[in-house]
């Protein structure tokens, strides 16, 4: 019968080393997760403090602080949202669920990944024009590429009809009368809420997305791709 000689100090050393390595890997991964979460929070903060977001959040009584309408009216009314509508929530609902996590894919490798990172198309799909039947054109994309005055026209018409019904008599809204009322409104220097102005496109979601995607990619490994980041050998 052969005796087995155990080199206890050596085993203990290796066990400690393994424990330490595991602990170090965990620690490093958690550190990266914290940084990822910071990027996410910065992303949401930048989105919420973007001049366009702030103007829309301010609702139908705000002024055109983003300058996209030449200082007249405001984006909330120009796009044509209902007064109780919260269009920014539709985007926030896609950004808030972003999560980061990690797992040990091999003894010396940790994979960090992101859950629920929306594709840019998901943002466009979640932000349909208020006059549409729920799909198609996105107001968020329109902020970047241009928004026609159609929303303004629809809203103006609704405003006239609503005034007519509130006053208790039917307004005979024919084309000639509508055009005259529209023209009067546009030439009235005191009126800012519905003054028809050309919309000037500005950078918005796409720029934020690209910026934060780059930050996340830099933070992780050179080869990573959203939604899966691979930290090959980084924690050896």
């Amino acid at each position, binding site marked *: 019968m052969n005796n087995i000689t155990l080199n206890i100090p050596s085993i203990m050393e290796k066990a400690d080393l393994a424990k330490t390595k595991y602990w170090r890997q965990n620690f490093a991964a958690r550190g990266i997760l914290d940084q990822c979460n910071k990027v996410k929070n910065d992303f949401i903060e930048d989105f919420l403090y973007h001049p366009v977001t702030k103007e829309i959040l301010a609702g139908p009584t705000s002024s055109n602080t983003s300058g996209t309408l030449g200082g007249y009216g405001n984006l909330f009314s120009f796009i044509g949202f209902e007064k109780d509508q919260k269009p920014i929530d539709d985007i926030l609902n896609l950004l808030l669920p972003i999560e980061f996590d990690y797992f040990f894919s091999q003894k010396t490798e940790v994979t960090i990944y992101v859950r629920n990172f929306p594709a840019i198309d998901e943002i466009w799909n979640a932000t349909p024009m208020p006059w549409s*039947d729920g799909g198609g*054109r996105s107001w968020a994309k329109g902020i970047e590429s241009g928004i026609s*005055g159609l929303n303004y026209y629809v809203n103006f018409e609704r405003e006239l009809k609503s005034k007519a019904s509130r006053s208790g008599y039917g307004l005979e809204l024919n*084309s000639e009368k509508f055009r005259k009322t529209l023209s009067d409104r546009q030439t009235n220097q005191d009126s800012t809420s519905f003054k028809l102005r050309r919309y000037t496109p500005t950078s918005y979601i796409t720029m934020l997305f690209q910026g934060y995607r780059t930050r996340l990619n830099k933070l992780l490994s050179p080869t990573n791709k959203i939604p899966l980041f691979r930290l090959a050998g980084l924690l050896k």
Partner: protein
Amino acid sequence: MKPQFQHKLATSYLLWFENYFFKKSEAYSLQTGTFTNFSDDRLPPEYNAFGVPFKQLMYDSSFANVYIPSGLYVDGNFLPFDNENYFLDYENGRFVGNGIPTGSQITGTYTAKDVNIYYTNDTEENIVLNVQESIDRSVNNVHSSYYDPYQQKMPAIYLSNQISQNKPFAFGGMNETLTQGKAVILTYNSFELDTIMSIFADTYNENIPLVDFDAHPINEFGSPKTGYYSYNDIEKTYSKQIFIKNVVTTKMSDRIRHHNLIKFLYIGFVDFELSIFRYRS
């Protein structure tokens, strides 16, 4: 002034759109009937106009089942078109003849478009407002046997191309030119609207031949310049392609439409993202 890339793009987009739409929808009908005389002070005094109760007529010979007339019967005698003195104004649905007496009995067969297509530089809101005006005018000026010339008629599709930008693509100065092509659709019923939207939603990844500006087939009288036009020839002649990178279709909801002045019209929009790789000219 020399035509530029945008002119070529607009011509290419319009010709492709028309051909693609009528090829897929077959939204046209064969008609036989009388042409009714009316006055048009924009025509030279020696020319007389005779209209039909349809607006735009088909002139693209690339469709096997579309009849393109080569002439009409004037007082029972066949009069062939010569593209100068006797021709069809396909844009305004009428025959124009030099020296044809106003009392002549003119009959013939032609193919009428069920949906009219216009190219415009106007904004969406102006298109909608102008449509109201045009409908008001046409209501006050109803003719049972012809339509007044130069006025637009529903159902209609208004095409335009808007914002264009260049992005670097390859060394040596090659750019990707991205252009927004738009179509505003106004129809009398949701079936027509859905047909048009469905056809163009499927144009994602299609190619459009980039044609020369002077390839537009229609002259100032609304008649083919050479007397004959086929989009098949265009496709064979021009090899450079514009790529449809993305298409988005949007319908105005009934909730909004019912508040609208033109609530009897169904309104939709098609937004194309057109891409082409090119060097600056």
